[in-house]
């Protein structure tokens, strides 16, 4: 090997090898590191977008208000104002996308899920003992779910 810049041949070889290894390292790094790495920190920025890409399951109260504003307003004025429509009516996404898809009627037993008496439940909650509170009658025979306090 011809001496390069007056260096002995073993140094020239060493310098060449170093240049090759450094070039290979940076080439491999460019190829292997995802392009969004380091966008927000020491991780892939695209991971955020991938996690966010999932489709929501519950439609949310805003979606109900678009068509049923009258009902939403009525509920918001009564005791059940904190409830989401989907608490009783079930997941509504299919219905929001296509109003022809009807939601199932409110299932019996949904009321006691929240209102069955329990010593662990906070005192502010209206609680009943379902085995001695007008047994044999459906809850909605007396209570209107949208205005539960208006009992005849």
């Amino acid at each position, binding site marked *: 090997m011809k001496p390069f810049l007056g260096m002995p041949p073993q140094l020239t070889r060493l310098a060449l090898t170093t240049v090759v290894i450094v070039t290979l390292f940076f080439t491999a790094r460019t190829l292997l590191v995802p392009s969004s790495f380091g966008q927000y920190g020491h991780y892939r920025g695209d991971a955020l977008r*991938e*996690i*966010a890409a999932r489709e929501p399951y519950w439609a949310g109260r805003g979606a109900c208000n678009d068509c049923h504003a009258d009902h939403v307003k009525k509920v918001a004025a009564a005791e059940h104002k904190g409830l989401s429509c989907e608490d009783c009516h079930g997941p509504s996404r299919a219905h929001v996308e296509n109003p022809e898809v009807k939601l199932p009627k409110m299932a019996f037993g949904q009321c006691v899920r*929240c209102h069955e008496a*329990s010593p*662990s439940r906070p005192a502010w909650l209206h609680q009943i003992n379902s085995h001695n509170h007008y047994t044999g009658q459906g809850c909605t025979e007396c209570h209107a779910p949208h205005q539960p306090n208006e009992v005849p």
Partner: protein
Amino acid sequence: MTQNLSRRGLLRTLGGLALGAACVSAARASKAAVQKGLASSGAPKEYDPTKHRWQMAFDVDRCIGCGLCVEACKAENSVPENSFRTWIERYVVTKPEPGGGDNRGETFVDSPDGGIHGFPPSLIPKEEVLKSFFVPKLCNQCENSPCAQVCPVGATFEAPDGVVLVDRNYCIGCGFCIQACPYGCRFFNETTHTADKCTLCYHRITRGLRPACVEICPSGARIFGDLKNTTPDDPISQFFQKNKVEGLKPHLGTRPRTVYAGLDMEVR
């Protein structure tokens, strides 16, 4: 170079160069294709994580233990059976022995199926109960996350909007983070074979919706908001105005971002 360039030598050099160039372009093309496939199309485009700071808070006195949040979370995030991203615990504190000098007896905690079907009556007789209450739990989104610290491949990280997330494409499922979490908020997802946890419904909050558990909670026990939201009626700023709050296990230095109001000393 003093050697003469032979035909064989020239061909070899040219062949090597061509092969190298082909390798580089193939690798570039496959990398681009993989990244295109990964960056899924359904993600909300206009969302900027640096402009939000999400905060979850619990009002323990409002939780009625109905379990609707657990059910909503399972459906929203396809959480496998026997695993929970959020769950409810029932605390039952018994009365102290009369004249024994204690302010309370024993504490019993249970969470049958995470509370997804509500809670059957407690086995402890009503007369012996000093007090009883429900505590909802989920990922505390720690600022100093033990789970992110132990991950050997950097698959868990804290996003700029304050949510601790798992990159499923990088997670190797070793389970270090599941052991590291002092709150028991992580689990191994048998379907994806990765570590899994609450994302605060990242796919909902980036679309302007609230997390499924907050949306479904009928009693207002879960409060969620954006600390970078400047509107004064933001639920989370109102919550911080009205309540004295604390995080779980503050002595561990994890700095949990999820806070509780009305917490009892027995809750860990």
